[in-house]
């Protein structure tokens, strides 16, 4: 049976440190866009930490919620793409084929989580920053939509590794960059089709809920609410 990759994010552990955000930039060749472009809302973050204020001073609280592609089971982004650039993999990922994308941006409109980002220009790296680029991840050109992949290159690497050792993938073999970096251990990644995996066990907790669950998108990410 194919793996069904999923994630649990424990909001009671998340401290809003944003280690995940920079980890994602480093792993996935995400470009920075300049202050001028950032001011127009064109940053390329695949993951961001939402902050919500509650109440007023002095009885004020802030809550954090890391939001990345929810890798929906019934993804609104997929059917709307006219060129199949956005499609569903057998392992439950909402994949984006950059080479197939012609930039209608329909998928990004359809996505209720606003986690798809568009390359308004071709990205540039001031030399020698380009030497940092991860050769396992393609660099996207201007006019193309991009998004979180659950670090599919790490999944592939782990699968190859397991194959080389002639064994099945084990729980914990795959960690996307954000999960790897999370100091508070708020993020857990794994195979939801394996009921014994850590991610499956956590996803069943009573604190769990899905973001915008009522939309019926069947996200693969479960949020464990703050107590």
């Amino acid at each position, binding site marked *: 049976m194919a793996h069904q990759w999923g994630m649990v994010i424990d909001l009671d552990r998340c401290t809003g440190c944003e280690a995940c955000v920079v980890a994602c930039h480093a792993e996935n060749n995400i470009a920075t866009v300049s202050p001028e472009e950032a001011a127009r*809302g064109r940053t390329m973050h695949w993951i961001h930490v939402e902050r*919500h204020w509650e109440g007023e001073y002095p009885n004020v609280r802030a809550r954090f919620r890391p939001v990345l592609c929810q890798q929906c089971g019934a993804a609104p982004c997929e059917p709307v793409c006219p060129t199949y650039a956005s499609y569903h993999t057998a392992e439950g990922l909402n994949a984006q084929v950059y080479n197939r994308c*012609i930039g209608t941006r329909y998928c990004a409109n359809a996505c*209720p989580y606003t986690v798809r980002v568009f390359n308004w220009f071709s990205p540039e790296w001031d030399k020698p920053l380009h030497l940092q680029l991860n050769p396992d991840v393609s660099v996207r050109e201007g006019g193309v*939509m991009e998004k979180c992949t659950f670090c599919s290159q790490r999944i592939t690497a782990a699968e190859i590794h397991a194959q080389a050792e002639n064994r099945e993938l084990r729980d914990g073999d795959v960690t996307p960059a954000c999960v790897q970096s999370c100091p508070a251990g708020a993020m857990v990644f794994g195979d939801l089709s394996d009921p014994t995996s850590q991610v499956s066990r956590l996803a069943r907790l009573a604190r769990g809920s899905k973001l915008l669950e009522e939309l019926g998108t069947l996200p693969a990410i479960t949020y464990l609410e703050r107590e």
Partner: protein
Amino acid sequence: MAPNSVTQTNVIDQEAERIREDLLRPLFRTSWRFYTVVGVLVAIGLPGLAAFIYQSYSGLGVAGLSNPVFWGFYITNFVFWIGISHAGTLISAILRLVNAGWRRPVTRCAEAITVFALVIGGQFPVIHLGRPWLFFWLIPYPSERHIWPNFRSPLLWDFLAISTYITGSVTFLLLPIIPDWATVRDRSTGLRKRIYTVLALGWQGTPREWHRLETAMSIMTVAIIPVAVSVHSIVSWDFAMALVPGWHSTVFGPYFVVGAIFSGIAALIIAMALLRKFLHLEEYLTPVHFNNLGKLLLLMSLLWFYFVFAERLTVWYGNETAEMPGFWSVQRGQFAGLFWTMVACNFLIPFPILAIKKLRTITGTVIASATVVVGMWLERFLIVVPSLEHKFLPYNWGSYRPTWVEITIMVGTAAGMVLLYVLFAKFVPIISMWELRGGEHATAAEVAARGVVGRSGAVPDATLLGTNG
């Protein structure tokens, strides 16, 4: 019934000849005004083309779009022009279907708007692409990699619907032009004769040919109506199918179709008024036509108002968390100015003008139409942008300001639309000569009695609405 099967009196012969002369004059005589107009339109249009090339070269970022407002002016214009395109084919098909005799001078102006609005509107989905040079990946052709487009995507439905519509509209426009081109062929010499010989497709005017033409037109008339309705429904589904608060609504299909016909009629009235003035067609495009189209516009204005009211009311009453921020931004937030301008343009101004018989003059209907065109553009904008600015997660809300690139392209394509229309009127008799004659033959007796046709504008309704055309 073919014209040459009717016994012709001298009076009618003379009259027919005069009609031909009037209507063919623009084809044979070219004034400096024509060149000036073409020059000005090209001068406005070329910067638009340059802006598009610049955008393709630099990246779509030169437009004012951003995350999460991924669609803006381009899609607004797309929907707007596709809406305008409903001027023609749908209106003229309906009028043909109900056999409204007064339609005769109107149909071709209307159908031409359709074709050119589609040509212009159809460019916008390509202009708005991130990688416009790959637009052909939308076309379902068998590629060597066996990758078909995704037939589940409303954008593909769009592509299919619009290409069907443009094919149908072109056919619908060209079929009745053939006899008129034959007339031009017969009256011209030299290069022009050779060109029109080709265009006339060997039309001889035999009863057989007339019969086939009539049959073809009957079929097209019936066929084009569902196509036209489907086109704007599908355009509306680009929005309604996406999970965006403010877009996801069942009313969008009919709402868009009504809006499209509404803006189409308005565009038609404006076009007719301009043609009337510049091509001196006062005798053919009479106050009666404007009066009748004005009534239609009034009907559409009421229908439009009803749809807007229904759409807004249900959203407001439903009071869904996700829908309300976008709703209020339109009703009383940063878009309120545009919203109330739209209501004024589409209802408050045109309604009294069109409802009061005294005001339903040529000037009156043109004023009403002008506001409607502006109002309908605003309506498209208010559907596209405020919703995208206010999606489900407020943390990610954004804003949109168009740049000079979008405005230049928008103005340039509008100029392109007018240019195409001007050129069309230059090479094709803008009023169907044979159909006009057909209409008049039916009332030959009355015509003979009065000695004049369609001169004063006070032609009795029986003539215009004659049923045996």
